[in-house]
């Protein structure tokens, strides 16, 4: 028994070290004043300054943010519809195909998704003249498509974990199905929609391969820019950029996690107070 | 064997979870071949005690001795004890035969012997034709029998049963109760049953320990705990009872007179030697020990009280009357419907003024708890 917990504890430590030490080292080197990335030349924040002066980086970042916001929003709407369909509409013709199309993008290798979407866009352009050329629009369409699958899965699992008697009760009390959706179902899945939006946003911000296929000349997303620089090796300004991105995301996730944790605790406390008042 | 006759000996066992004391200094002796029940409400510590016997929890202090062997350092998988889990805990990926034979994998026996043993057990619980089924293909009662056979396979010295009938419906429960008793008698294995159901404990067990908040309140035969409860908790927990606060006014020849103001009468009841005049006691009488009548009894002051029928519950074989006394207190009276009469001819009916009387031997005196 003792040996087993020692073993589990040491694998956990090793695993988390494996996951986090590389990032931490990279972050540390972003404060290195030396241009040589392997030699520590003292503490400095000069690379952050250089980064902010780099128009190329700023433009790419803005483009990526724009694509991420738009695609995450559309993906959340479409994914919510898809999740509702899977969790609440029961059996219908073509359900198997539908659920297959929802789960396949989650594991499909990016090169296949990217290639097939590009070929679709090219064919559509030849046939109906839309979309004319490739660029931010086609990247956004591609990102919506794979992100909505993630949103759908999140919404579906939220809804299946919830008893649908609440919705039936509302229906029983005279609400039309549409009202039930608006008054009952949406508030319940709202937190899942928020997580879905955030996940879609980061997936879009992070995507390199699909964007490389579906993007046209002239517009460069942030991952494409980073990739082109990274292929040439380690540079301190990319360390700084990475530190900024990782830092912002971590802060966001930790704050969101903390807020949810607190809300849950508050709810538990309320329940306890209510129980105590009843006794 | 230890010097005395106890097969399982629980010595001053305490179990704490952080600040919470789940089992508080419990001592208990159980003899070989007994069908013993631990009875109590949820959170009373009965399951924790059972899990300490199985070895899943370690006592914070105290000792558990089974068949002369101190279980202190013995891991669950080395104990001569098997358990039937409340959820049955059947392995979902193994069929009935594999489930039953699982414990025998570690025994030194040939494959043939093992097969033989499994088929004996299948016969014992009458599941021969279901040997190849998976647990999810069985009914609740069949699963219960598989769990029982699996726990018996290794011929344990002690079988622990956690709410063995809890998951069964009422009809099946009664039948299974007697099956369990028969199997226990046939094999002579010591059974320890944990249950919250007093009827189950009373029918199954030869002795019952009643637990409350980690403490054993009383140990005795079903008759002992029902007819001769030693504490208010036991009296109230087992069956239904009418209980009043009272003061002892006199003690003579093992019988005391007790004045119970709320009841509005004097009780005469046998008492144990320790009770003396002036003691505050509880005095109680079970509903079925009270006679109800519209006619005036001989004595109207001792073991008799007048009231008005407030409620009448007709259950078929018997009826329950709730009678309101002058003090406003309610007394419950059970009456067997041993005669077949029309409703209109009922001897006692709603709003009747009635007299309640009981025999001096029926009243129970419960000393104040320290």
């Amino acid at each position, binding site marked *: 028994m003792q040996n087993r917990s020692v073993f*589990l504890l040491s*694998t956990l430590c090793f695993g*988390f070290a*494996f996951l*986090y030490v*590389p*990032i931490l080292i*990279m972050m540390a080197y972003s404060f290195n004043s030396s241009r040589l*990335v*392997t030699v520590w030349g003292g503490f400095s924040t000069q690379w952050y300054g250089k980064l902010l002066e780099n128009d190329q980086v700023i433009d790419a970042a803005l483009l990526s943010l724009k694509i991420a916001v738009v695609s995450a929003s559309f993906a959340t709407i*479409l994914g919510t*519809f898809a999740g509702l369909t899977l969790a609440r*509409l029961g059996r219908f013709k*073509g359900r198997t195909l*539908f659920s*297959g199309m929802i*789960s*396949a*993008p*989650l*594991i499909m*290798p990016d*090169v*296949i998704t990217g*290639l*097939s*979407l590009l*070929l*679709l866009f*090219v*064919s559509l352009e030849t046939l109906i003249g839309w979309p004319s050329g490739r660029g931010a629009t086609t990247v956004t369409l591609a990102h919506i498509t794979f992100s909505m699958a993630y949103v*759908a899965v999140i919404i579906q699992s939220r809804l*299946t974990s919830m008893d649908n008697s609440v919705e039936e009760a509302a229906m029983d009390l005279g609400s039309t199905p*549409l009202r039930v959706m608006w008054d009952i179902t949406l508030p319940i899945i709202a937190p899942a929609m928020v997580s879905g939006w955030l*996940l879609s946003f980061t997936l879009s911000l992070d995507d*390199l*391969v699909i964007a*490389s296929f579906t993007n046209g000349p002239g517009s460069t997303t942030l991952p494409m820019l980073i990739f082109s620089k*990274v*292929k040439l*090796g*380690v540079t301190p300004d990319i360390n700084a*950029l*990475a530190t900024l991105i*990782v830092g912002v995301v*971590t802060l*966001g996730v930790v704050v969101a996690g903390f807020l949810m944790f607190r809300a849950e605790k508050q709810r538990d406390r309320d329940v306890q107070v209510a129980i105590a008042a009843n006794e | 064997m230890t010097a005395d006759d106890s097969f399982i000996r629980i010595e001053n066992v305490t179990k704490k979870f952080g600040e919470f004391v789940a089992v508080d200094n419990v001592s208990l002796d159980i003899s070989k071949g007994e069908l013993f029940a631990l009875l109590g409400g949820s959170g009373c510590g009965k399951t924790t005690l059972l899990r300490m016997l199985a070895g899943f929890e370690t006592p914070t202090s105290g000792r558990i001795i089974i068949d002369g062997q101190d279980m202190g350092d013995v891991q*669950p*998988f080395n*104990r001569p004890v098997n*358990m039937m*889990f*409340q959820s049955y805990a059947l*392995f*979902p990926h193994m069929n009935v035969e594999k489930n039953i034979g*699982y*414990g025998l*994998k*570690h*025994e030194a026996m040939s494959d043939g012997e093992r097969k033989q043993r499994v088929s004996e057990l299948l016969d014992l619980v009458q599941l021969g034709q279901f040997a190849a089924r998976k647990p999810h293909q069985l009914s609740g009662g069949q699963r219960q029998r598989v769990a029982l056979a699996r726990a018996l396979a290794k011929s344990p010295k002690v079988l622990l049963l956690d709410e063995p009938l809890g998951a069964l419906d009422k009809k099946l429960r009664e039948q299974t109760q007697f099956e369990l008793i028969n199997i226990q008698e046939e094999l002579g294995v010591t059974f320890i049953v944990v249950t919250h159901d007093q009827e189950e404990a009373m029918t199954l067990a030869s002795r019952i320990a009643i637990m409350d908040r980690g403490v054993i309140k009383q140990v005795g035969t079903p008759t002992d705990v029902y007819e001769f409860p030693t504490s208010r908790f036991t009296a109230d927990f087992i069956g239904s009872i009418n209980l009043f606060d009272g003061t002892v006014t006199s003690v003579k020849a093992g019988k005391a007179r007790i004045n119970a103001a709320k009841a509005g009468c004097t009780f005469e009841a046998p008492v144990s030697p320790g009770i003396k005049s002036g003691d505050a006691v509880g005095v109680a009488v079970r509903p079925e020990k009270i006679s109800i009548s519209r006619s005036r009894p001989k004595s109207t002051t001792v073991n008799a009280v007048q009231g008005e029928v407030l409620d009448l519950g007709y259950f078929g074989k018997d009826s329950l009357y709730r009678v309101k006394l002058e003090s406003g207190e309610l007394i419950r009276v059970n009456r067997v419907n041993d005669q077949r009469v029309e409703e209109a001819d009922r001897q006692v009916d709603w709003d009747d003024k009635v007299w309640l009387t009981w025999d001096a031997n029926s009243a129970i005196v419960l000393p104040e708890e320290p």
Partner: protein
Amino acid sequence: MSELAGKSVSSSATQRSGFQRWLNRNGWRKIVAGIPYFWLLLFFLAPFFIVMVIAVSEAAYSIPPFKIPFSWEALQANIATNFGYLINDSLYYTGYLNSLKIAAISTVFCLLLGYPMAYGIARSSGATRNILLLLVILPFWTSFLLRIYAWIGLLGTNGTINNVLLAIGIIDEPLQMMNTDFAVYIGIVYSYLPFMILPLYANLERLDNTLTEAAMDLGSTPARTFLDVTLPLSVPGIVAGSMLVFIPATGEYVIPVLLGTGSSPMIGRVLFDEFFLNTDWPVASAVAIVLLLLLVVPIMMFNHYQARAEGVE
């Protein structure tokens, strides 16, 4: 009077427009299901058919750079040419074999590291468990590209690992770790580890604790109990996690490009280069189709176990 009242009710109901009534009866279902359905048919399913068509087309110097065959003979010839490359040119078939090998080995390492981690998390309690889970999920949210980038700084000839090993005297000259298969294994295990841990955790956490207690009660040591009960019951989690790692890893592009060797590229890189450098769309499509065919069995396994995991609940 009553007749009048009845009439006014029914007329106001019709006034509430046929559209609204259609919505309330069944229309809302059609909209909710129809929009994402149509989207996926157009942007997910249709592209695969286009890929199939282009895979049997002829490469051409035109825009777009392919010609769709209009005769049976042309079709056969195109299939023979495009798919012929994949069989005859070692670049392609070694690319596939390499990818399958690297993905399989990485999956095994992910499992060996991820299983005890998932088990440890499932066994821990309350707040600790939540924090550990958050630590597993956190890398999901941070840039995949940048996390691979971090390894370039570690694995290089002048990288942190070599510097540390040289400093403490374990090695005399730097180890060649960058641009090797070893670096690719590290990269894949590193970036896909959370995908292995999460389904395993979900599976192990649901596992009924009384089952392991029952096995121990029947005489099994903890090790035996693990083999007899925990491991077989966590097979759905193992399969789901392994497929979540194996399938995308097979088509991985970024990791082998940044960390791997150029001499025996993985198939994702072959496809990418075929498309962008050679501009041979038909052969790139053929490569994609064969890759998809190789992955059909794992994808179906994943869906099967996913459905089973949902059915259990």
